[in-house]
């Protein structure tokens, strides 16, 4: 029979034998872990999870990788290669003529394209100013909805009530909050492969 101690001490506690009846708490934790495995297999590992679940999921990932089940998608691979080349080339002084920067021609034309586009927009704005009727339409436009994970938000739903038994697990809670916030940052940074 799984004891309360076993449930509390996922990583270091003794593991019940397969025939032992599971407690409701263990069943709930097992379901949470099974959902995490589901998402990981689908390539959607959630960034926020408890330190215990993360440690177990790492083991599951190692088993999958050893079985050859962890492929890097071609699009992801290309994005990482591009990012690495940019990081390496951007981080050192470029000797003229010696190094061929990526998209050199594009980079050289970029300031002129931006300047030209700005000029056209400015000219169009002036023309519209004179041509437009002198009536002001107030458009009631709702602000664009931001994804929840890009907004400032309380950590309470993530952490939940902290029981006395887990009062000392501040580090794990910080890990969970950090991973959750990092997800939003990474999503913005990596979007489009950059």
């Amino acid at each position, binding site marked *: 029979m799984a004891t309360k101690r076993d449930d509390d001490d996922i990583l270091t506690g003794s593991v019940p034998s397969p025939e032992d009846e599971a407690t409701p708490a263990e069943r709930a934790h097992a379901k949470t872990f099974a959902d995490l*495995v589901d998402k990981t297999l689908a390539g959607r*590992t959630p960034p926020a999870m408890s330190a215990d679940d993360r440690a177990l999921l790492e083991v599951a990932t190692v088993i*999958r*990788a*050893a079985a050859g089940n962890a492929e890097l998608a071609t699009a992801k691979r290309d994005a990482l290669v591009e990012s690495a080349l940019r990081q390496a080339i951007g981080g050192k002084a470029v000797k003229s003529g010696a190094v061929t920067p990526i998209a050199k021609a594009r980079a050289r034309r970029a300031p002129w394209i931006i300047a030209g586009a700005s000029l056209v927009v400015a000219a169009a704005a002036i023309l519209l100013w004179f041509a437009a009727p002198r009536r002001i339409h107030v458009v009631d436009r709702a602000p664009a909805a931001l994804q929840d994970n890009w907004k400032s938000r309380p950590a309470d739903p993530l952490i939940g009530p902290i029981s006395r038994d887990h009062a000392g697990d501040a580090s794990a809670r910080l890990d969970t909050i950090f991973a959750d916030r990092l997800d939003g940052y990474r999503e913005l940074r990596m979007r489009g492969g950059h």
Partner: protein
Amino acid sequence: MASEPATAVELEEEQRLVEEAQAGNLDSMRPILERYAQPLYGTVILPRLGDAASAEEVLRDTLATAVEKIGRFTWQGKSIYPWLRQIAINKVFDVHRQAKRSRRLADALVHEVPAETDPDSHADAQLMADQERRAHRVKIDETLDVLAERYRLAIELRLVQELPREDCAKRLNVTIGTFDVLLFRAVRAFRKHFGSDVPEETHGD
């Protein structure tokens, strides 16, 4: 990537690209990076970290470091892959050190393929990757062998064969909820035994 060993023509092409990069055209590294990204990710980095997001970051840093330091690489008539692999392993240990996490996963797998590749061996990248994957699999199987039969089956069905939970539960004649408990306990048991014979502080960085 093909499972055939690199041909002399491919090695010649690789040497030409490396020399071009060393002459200053760093973008010539692109085909090399594209070729070796998957074996580095799948057999070197991910198995030692267990986290896809961290593994992708380490892969990117590995490739960037390779481009930055290509001038220091000396062509020895074999693939550049062993050199890339060594950079990747060093980065993995950096991650473990910086995050102050246990290096148990990395340590459990580090013995299988020499960290430093013999400069006299004309090791081919694909052969090395295959050898490393087989060595990992042996290590995993050794750990599975010490688990209870139902735990071993739960891991085999769900994580190796990647069958849906429903199918796994049917195979074991249990409900999905019970299968979830079996898998949960199986991974806990696996973790307790995996790498348990490797002292964590035995490997230098």
